[in-house]
């Protein structure tokens, strides 16, 4: 790893000022991505500003039922927070299906949202990669792309976004709160993730030195029956080939609200809006579920080794919806 200097900060303003004023500085939270990528030579920082002492680790409920998850809350703690388990089970399940307990004890929620892709061409530090070195090309297009994206990709980048919890968060319209040199702002999580387009190196609308302070989950009644399913090469401690977050609301025998989001198949946590549109107002039947799943995957662009993800994603959606429907039976 390159030599780095280190500063421990005690307030958000100091953190933002230090990092924002120096292009070579970066925030250090759990370190599970940052230290890894610095050691691999994929990311470069001269100075790490340790934000772990900031008072941003709580999960709190506001008067109106909104849940505010502090950016420094650890994945394992958020997963076991009763109010998250009760109101947003898919969020808790997605957290527990990601990484290992050691990593979940370390990784912060803000850092989870900002984690980098697991594409081996990005991580090897030498292959042509537009995300790591803009303009060098994408090695995955004609390479080993079994794990890569079929939705939201471009000719510049087809890497999938690796987060599980972000998939659940996009399903429930979470809001990312930040603090920067220009003050505070709130960004819808769907807008927080940018499609690669011609600039895959730009993943978020954050300015340098802009710090995530909290993740807001607005009151979402259907989310209380939500679920998260993850399909992968081994049963535990593996990234998703396909995952799905699902929530349904029924009214008078038809679907009044549907939330569907996909992981493992897209360049960002993927809100399945086409599927949701098909479901809204439809009867909760296998036929409706299949139609919705097919609608979402119409625009899929399979590559040499990942064509199986189209069928797998459709089946994941159908299974997720079926299980969500079964949740109403009892």
């Amino acid at each position, binding site marked *: *790893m*390159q*030599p*780095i*200097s*280190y*500063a*421990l*900060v*005690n*307030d958000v*303003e*100091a953190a*933002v*000022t*230090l990092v924002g004023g120096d292009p070579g500085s970066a925030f*250090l939270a759990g*370190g*599970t991505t940052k*230290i*890894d990528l*610095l*050691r*691999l030579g994929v990311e470069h920082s*001269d*100075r*790490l500003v*340790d934000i*772990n002492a900031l008072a941003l680790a709580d999960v709190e409920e506001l008067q109106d039922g909104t849940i505010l998850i502090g950016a420094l809350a650890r994945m394992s703690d958020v997963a076991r927070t009763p109010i998250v388990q009760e109101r947003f089970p898919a969020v808790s399940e997605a957290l527990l299906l990601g*990484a*290992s*307990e*050691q*990593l979940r*004890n*370390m990784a912060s929620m803000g850092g989870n949202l900002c984690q980098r892709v697991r594409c081996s061409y990005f991580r090897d530090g030498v292959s042509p990669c537009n995300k790591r070195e803009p303009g060098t090309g994408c090695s995955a297009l004609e390479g080993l792309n079994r794990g890569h994206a079929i939705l939201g990709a471009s000719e510049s980048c087809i890497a999938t976004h690796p987060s599980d919890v972000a998939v659940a968060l996009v399903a429930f319209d979470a809001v990312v709160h930040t603090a920067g*040199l*220009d*003050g505070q702002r709130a960004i819808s999580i769907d807008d927080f993730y940018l499609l690669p387009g011609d600039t895959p190196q730009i993943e978020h609308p954050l300015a340098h030195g802009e710090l995530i302070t909290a993740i807001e989950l607005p009151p979402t009644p259907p989310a209380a029956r939500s679920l998260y399913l993850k399909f992968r090469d081994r*049963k*535990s*401690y593996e990234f998703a080939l396909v995952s799905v977050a699902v929530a349904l609301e029924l009214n008078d025998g038809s679907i009044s609200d549907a939330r569907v989001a996909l992981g493992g198949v897209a360049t960002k946590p993927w809100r399945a809006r086409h599927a949701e549109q098909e479901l809204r107002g439809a009867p909760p039947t296998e036929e409706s579920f299949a139609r919705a799943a097919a609608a979402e995957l119409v625009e899929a662009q399979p590559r040499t080794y990942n064509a199986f993800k189209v069928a797998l994603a459709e089946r994941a959606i159908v299974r997720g919806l079926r299980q969500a429907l079964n949740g109403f039976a009892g």
Partner: protein
Amino acid sequence: MATETRVAAEGVAEPPSERGPSREPVALRVNGSLRDVDLEPRTSLLDALREHLQLTGSKKGCDQGTCGACTVWVDGRRVLACLTLAIACEGHDVTTIEGISVDGEPHPMQRAFVEHDAFQCGYCTPGQIMSAIALFEEGNATTEEDIAEFMSGNICRCAAYPNIRAAIREVRDAAN
């Protein structure tokens, strides 16, 4: 807004002191003892333990957060020492495999690992044991499924998994 932010920052405290990139005195509390060591800020907790404090029980398998061989506890929670900076552990309690014996006797989990032959080459074993003990604190040792799931961050290339789970069950059942 930016101006307000700067004023607020000045009002709260003096700017934080920057340390490194060359070696700095770092005070680490490891297994209950305060240890002073000169470290570059980039030094991982794992390298600090193994190379500077001669605590070589924690193992370096992958050095990228994949294998779990470096599992230690920081403030009682299991973490990966390879992805942790040593300097960031100042003011926190670090516990390694060398720190779990009770009155000079092996920890019950260590005994159970021996009893059940829960290893072959032994390289992953310190990390396995640090995770295995942590399961109880976390409440993740109740079912066979939980044990398997919450031990998945510790890879054993010899595949001693069934015996590792047997050792954990024995400690659990003995405690009940």
